[in-house]
């Protein structure tokens, strides 16, 4: 699979993501500069973590006006796969490709730590290699990961099975302590209604080698690479 990693000024997980997709998982992975109008023929797009355009106004708020976002939107509308990690998730929310918005973490702290996540929907293009209820361990590193959506939107995405990952404890139980950033319904990752666009706050690309602390992130990236759930 040919994958493109979008680079904004201020992206800082672009090299890690390219390495995870290309060096570790053996795919053809290329950078896509945010100012170009060229997806270079990729099958899937990844918006990496970082601080696109400095995140000065709001996380992802300026990035949504980057020229390449037009092509990313068209790619998504055609059913192409788009994965947004951390800041990339925030950009997808600002673009309106995913529902909701991010607030500052409940404790007002930048959180840089491992979290455990429960797989809620194992039938998406980004989770079909997981089991329902499986607990995945991945790192997070963000200030604004406190997921918010109005109650009627939350109910709708729950009904549609759009919630893919929730913050949970190591046994897969939903607790207040496990929901480190205060996200509504403990949402850590979700897909759009069509199922081809996913955003998540944890960093799967930082969890692809045992040497670096774990390989659970492969479940998400390899699901995307190996194609849709049947």
């Amino acid at each position, binding site marked *: 699979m040919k994958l493109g990693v979008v680079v904004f000024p201020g992206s800082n997980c672009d090299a890690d993501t390219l390495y995870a997709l290309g060096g570790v998982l053996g795919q053809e992975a290329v950078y896509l500069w945010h100012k170009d109008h060229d997806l270079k023929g990729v099958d899937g797009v990844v918006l990496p973590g970082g601080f696109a355009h400095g995140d000065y106004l709001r996380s992802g*708020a300026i990035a949504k006006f980057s020229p390449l976002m037009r092509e990313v939107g068209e790619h998504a509308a055609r059913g192409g796969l788009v994965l947004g990690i951390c800041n990339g998730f925030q950009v997808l929310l600002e673009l309106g490709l995913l529902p909701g918005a991010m*607030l500052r*973490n409940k404790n007002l702290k930048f959180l840089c730590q491992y979290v455990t996540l429960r797989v809620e929907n194992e039938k998406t293009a980004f989770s079909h290699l997981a089991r329902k209820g499986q607990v995945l361990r991945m790192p997070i590193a963000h200030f604004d990961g406190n997921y918010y959506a109005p109650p009627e939107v939350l109910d709708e995405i729950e009904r549609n099975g759009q919630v893919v990952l929730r913050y949970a404890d190591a046994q897969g139980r939903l607790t207040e302590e496990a929901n480190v950033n205060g996200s509504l319904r403990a949402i850590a990752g979700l897909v759009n209604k069509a199922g081809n666009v996913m955003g998540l706050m944890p960093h799967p690309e930082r969890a692809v080698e045992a040497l670096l602390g774990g390989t659970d992130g492969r479940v998400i990236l390899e699901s995307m690479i190996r194609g849709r759930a049947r």
Partner: protein
Amino acid sequence: MKVRILVSFKDSVLDPQGQTVKNALLTLGYGFVKDVRQGKVFELDLEGVDEAEARRLVPEIASKVLANPIIEKFSWDILP
């Protein structure tokens, strides 16, 4: 013409930063402070637009760029 735009969280959205400021004020003895909401202020210096155009364009800028309508609301005024 100068305009001032105030962006703040909708009433339905929790504002943890405002809560922290409120708690600090209570700790300092200002027990009469019932609530604090924190927001952002933008002052825009506009050139070559009249007031009618500003009334159309400023809300457009505010809702498209400065505020995220899912979580934030805005108000604005023309500065004297």
